[in-house]
């Protein structure tokens, strides 16, 4: 069957003027109505430079992922077209793919090394949405799209819906919007849900991995509600001390290989530093976010067993 492949637009590139406009609007809203400045020049510049680098990286290395998907497409048992209902289905399945990728990105240091960039700002505003990785292709996570290709969806369609997904996630990077209506919060990813995801408060660590649909977190037990009494602290468990985009881009890769190549480790321990969750230590029985949550509950036993926290 000869498919006529539509000329899908690159939505994230086309959206650049809208990104700029919304950032300026957010800056205005924060100053005018909240009397907080919200933005900081150096932090914003770094975020934008990471975004620019991400676009450049995509232009240079995009052929790698697309090439693999195109190769895999040759093995499909059926061919799916481009009717609107297939686009919707592809979007939903790709959103599940995003959830899986995002959960791996927080629980496997090899992938965290590229994703950490996005979490490295202690600010939470629309410029943070553009703080993206330069090294995504090196994690190999594009292979998660192969199942969609083998289902019969064309790589061009998968890339298109992936772009829509990323576009959706722009507006949720803000503190200017509280909670959306309950029905919306129940199904969609929202600023409230995503503030939890970016927070380092013990209960909020490793939660709300959604791209567009929060239903995956609800289904797979990773959903945590934002609480008024637990205001999010943004950034990393160990915050970075630089605005230099090069150091921001590569710091976790450097730290990860430093850890893995230290002398005196077994091969298994070295693999642990590469693929176990961020914060894992070979000489600690409990480490990383598990240790932080456990420590919090031990100090605050009344919080035991609440969403995002272990039971004592």
């Amino acid at each position, binding site marked *: 069957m000869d498919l006529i492949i539509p000329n899908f637009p690159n939505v994230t*590139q086309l959206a650049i003027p809208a990104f700029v406009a919304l950032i300026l609007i957010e800056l205005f809203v924060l100053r005018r109505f909240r009397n*907080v*400045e919200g933005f900081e*020049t150096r932090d914003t510049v770094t975020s*934008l430079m990471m975004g*620019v680098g991400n676009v450049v990286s995509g232009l240079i290395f995009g052929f790698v992922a697309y090439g693999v998907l195109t190769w895999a497409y040759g093995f499909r048992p059926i061919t799916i077209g481009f009717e609107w209902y297939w686009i919707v289905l592809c979007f939903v399945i790709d959103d599940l793919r995003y959830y899986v990728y995002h959960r791996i990105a927080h629980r496997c240091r090899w992938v965290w090394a590229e994703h950490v960039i996005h979490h490295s700002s202690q600010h939470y505003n629309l410029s943070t949405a553009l703080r993206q990785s330069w090294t995504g292709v090196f994690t190999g996570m594009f292979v998660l799209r192969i199942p969609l290709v083998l289902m019969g969806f064309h790589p061009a369609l998968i890339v298109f819906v992936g772009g829509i997904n990323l576009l959706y996630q722009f507006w949720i990077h803000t503190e200017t919007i509280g909670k959306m209506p309950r029905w919306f919060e129940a199904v969609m990813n929202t600023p409230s849900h995503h503030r939890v995801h970016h927070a380092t408060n013990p209960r909020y660590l490793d939660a709300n991995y959604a791209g567009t649909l929060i239903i995956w977190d609800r289904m797979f037990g990773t959903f945590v509600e934002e609480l008024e009494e637990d205001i999010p602290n943004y950034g990393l468990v160990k915050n970075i001390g*630089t605005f230099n985009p090069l150091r921001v881009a590569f710091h976790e890769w450097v730290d990860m290989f430093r850890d893995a190549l230290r002398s005196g480790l077994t091969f298994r321990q070295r693999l642990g530093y590469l693929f176990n969750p961020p914060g894992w230590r070979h000489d600690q029985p409990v480490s990383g976010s598990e240790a932080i949550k456990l420590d919090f509950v031990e100090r605050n036993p009344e919080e035991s067993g609440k969403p995002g926290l272990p039971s004592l």
Partner: protein
Amino acid sequence: MPLSVLALFVVLGVSAVVVSVYVFGDNAGRKLDENTARKRFTRDFPGFDPQTIVISDDGYDALLVSDNDSRSGLVHRIGKNYLTRLLERGSLRKMELTGQGIDLYVNDFTLQKISFSLADENLRKQVFGTLPSE
């Protein structure tokens, strides 16, 4: 989208945002005081009980010492925010007493050097003595 158009979008967009944030954003960091330093450090290290807190003369840094277990920690201003570090053996590549304070060369890819300003020579030497060895 042609590369030239994309480049134009990016250059104009980045310029507009950066200029606006510079004019209307908040670029003035707050100086540390003992209360802020304690609160900020114990948020990241809740088991740490600092009995001694020394704020640098410029208000950018704070050194916290737990007398109970001789541990020390650092709060360092990064832009408008702060970061914290527990100082253990091996955290510092090098420490240097200077005429204005202490230069701490940190074993940290994103935080190379902290210049802890302390004009008081006696205090400077006291603080130097509490820092963990390299």
